């Protein structure tokens, strides 16, 4: 077999047929001739700890099989061993760059199942922090998106501007990234007196700064050449595949949980849902940029309207949930993030299920990569806003 294989492959008359190879285009193992299987990852080849098994015919991808699971930590099982408060710090680990976003629905779910009231001021603080955190996350993602398409300025600028917003988060919560700031019944501590003024200053600076990203990044012909018309996701596919967040809105679906099912005080604030109809990699990068303007507006409005008062409802040492189940969802930076929480009346949850945006983008990614060029893979992959640690949980 080995010798025959060599004869078949090498030599001048490489077309020579050997027994068992009669079937056109297939060898005896049923493998497609000319189809090459590549394993991309999981050792962080610019993808995070995630593997893509890609089958290529020439430079066209005929099939992409996502293989997540390299950073699975069993968050859902861990939840069943800890009480509602102890679950807070580990639940934000899957997505430390957007820790407010991933904790938000959990806190809302616990408040509903344990019947905990929330002071009005805390709701505003949460919205402010969630929007600041949304910008922090989008900048982080756009920076990495930029560098993987060979645009190193787009890595440096967002990373630098991000620091200003991280300063705000640190001022409020004491931590730069993993804030653990939201707790059932409000937020962990009140904002410092100097916060609103500083936040206003930084947010206004940041809003001006955003304009420059258009010149350097979105108007850049090289970036456009690699993203415009690449990986087009049709509206119907986006919905049926369960795409969410900017990916869904870039395909023309006006769906934002902050609007369709407002939580906390989002219904009192004025903002627009950004959509684009193109559905390509460029639109998926452009929608978050426009959304950052909205985020800044939301945060500024909330700073204006925020009442004074307490920020946290005092809880007993070990709050118990009522028997039943709740399903809470919020619009995190990457899209709809939902918790399904089942309680059997104990201080520990009976079952916690995280439905995270990254996990939901896996079938979308597989769908878009099929038929794409291999060279377009990074641009499609990064436009998905896929984060392996969040997807694996």
């Amino acid at each position: 077999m080995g010798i025959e294989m060599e004869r078949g492959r090498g030599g001048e008359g490489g077309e020579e047929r050997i027994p068992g190879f009669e079937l056109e285009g297939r060898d005896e193992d049923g493998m497609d001739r000319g189809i090459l299987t590549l394993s991309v990852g999981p050792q962080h080849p610019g993808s995070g700890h995630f593997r893509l098994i890609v089958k290529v015919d020439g430079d066209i991808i005929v099939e992409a099989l996502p293989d997540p699971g390299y950073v699975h930590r069993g968050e859902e099982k861990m939840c069943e061993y800890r009480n509602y408060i102890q679950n807070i710090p580990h639940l934000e680990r899957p997505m430390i760059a957007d820790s407010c976003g991933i904790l938000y629905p959990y806190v809302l779910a616990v408040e509903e199942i344990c019947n905990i009231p929330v002071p009005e001021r805390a709701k505003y603080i949460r919205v402010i922090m969630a929007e600041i955190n949304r910008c922090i996350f989008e900048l982080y993602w756009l920076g990495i998106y930029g560098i993987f398409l060979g645009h190193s300025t787009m890595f440096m600028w967002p990373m630098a501007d991000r620091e200003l917003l991280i300063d705000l988060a640190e001022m409020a919560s004491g931590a730069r990234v993993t804030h653990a700031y939201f707790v059932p019944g409000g937020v962990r501590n009140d904002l410092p007196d100097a916060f609103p003024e500083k936040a206003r200053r930084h947010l206004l600076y940041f809003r001006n700064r955003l304009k420059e990203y258009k010149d350097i990044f979105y108007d850049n012909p090289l970036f456009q050449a690699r993203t415009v018309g690449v990986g087009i996701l049709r509206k119907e596919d986006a919905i049926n595949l369960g795409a969410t967040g900017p990916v869904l809105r870039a395909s023309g679906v006006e769906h934002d949980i902050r609007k369709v099912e407002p939580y906390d005080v989002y219904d009192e604030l004025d903002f627009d849902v950004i959509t684009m109809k193109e559905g390509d990699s460029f639109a998926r990068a452009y929608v978050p940029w426009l959304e950052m303007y909205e985020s800044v507006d939301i945060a500024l409005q909330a700073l204006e309207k925020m009442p004074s008062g307490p920020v946290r409802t005092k809880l007993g040492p070990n709050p118990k949930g009522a028997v039943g189940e709740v399903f809470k969802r919020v619009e995190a930076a990457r899209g709809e993030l939902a918790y399904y929480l089942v309680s059997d009346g104990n201080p520990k949850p009976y079952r916690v299920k995280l439905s995270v945006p990254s996990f939901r983008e896996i079938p979308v990614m597989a769908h878009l990569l099929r038929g794409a060029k291999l060279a377009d893979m990074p641009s499609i992959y990064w436009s998905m806003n896929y984060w392996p640690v969040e997807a694996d949980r």
Partner: protein
Amino acid sequence: MGQQGQGQGQASTDQLIVEKGIVDKVSARFGEKVKVAYVKPRRIRFNVSKDHIIEFARFVRDELGFDHPISVAGVDYPKNKMIDVVYHIGSCTNNDYRSLVLSFAVQLNRDDPVMPTLTPVYRGVEYHERETFEMLGVIFDGHPRLERLLLPEDWADIPPLRKDFHIKGREE
């Protein structure tokens, strides 16, 4: 429940009309085959037997506009010898139902948890179902690729989200 409770209370009186409308449409079509587990503001849950699940899913997708798969969760109830597989579906196209999440559950025998896959109806549930397969041992008949997803390739224990699996050192 304070201010939040009042807000939800107000919403619920307006909202429950919409939710009851959905329940009526479902019972008009399926009658006794589908049971209503609860109707809460913006949340409805039905319990559906596995024989009718495909028909039911097609009905809520095509007739009611619940077209956006959000989550599939398995819950193990060893006391009742049962595993719940709960689908959560939202709506992107029907403006009246956009704020709602419809959930429907299939209650399976814990010793033989087999049900048909819903991938022909919602392509987005493919990976959620795979996860439920490996985490709870539920077999989805007709699934295109029912393989290991998140666990290590050499995992040789019972499905870890079953209640009789314990984290090492945390046995009770």
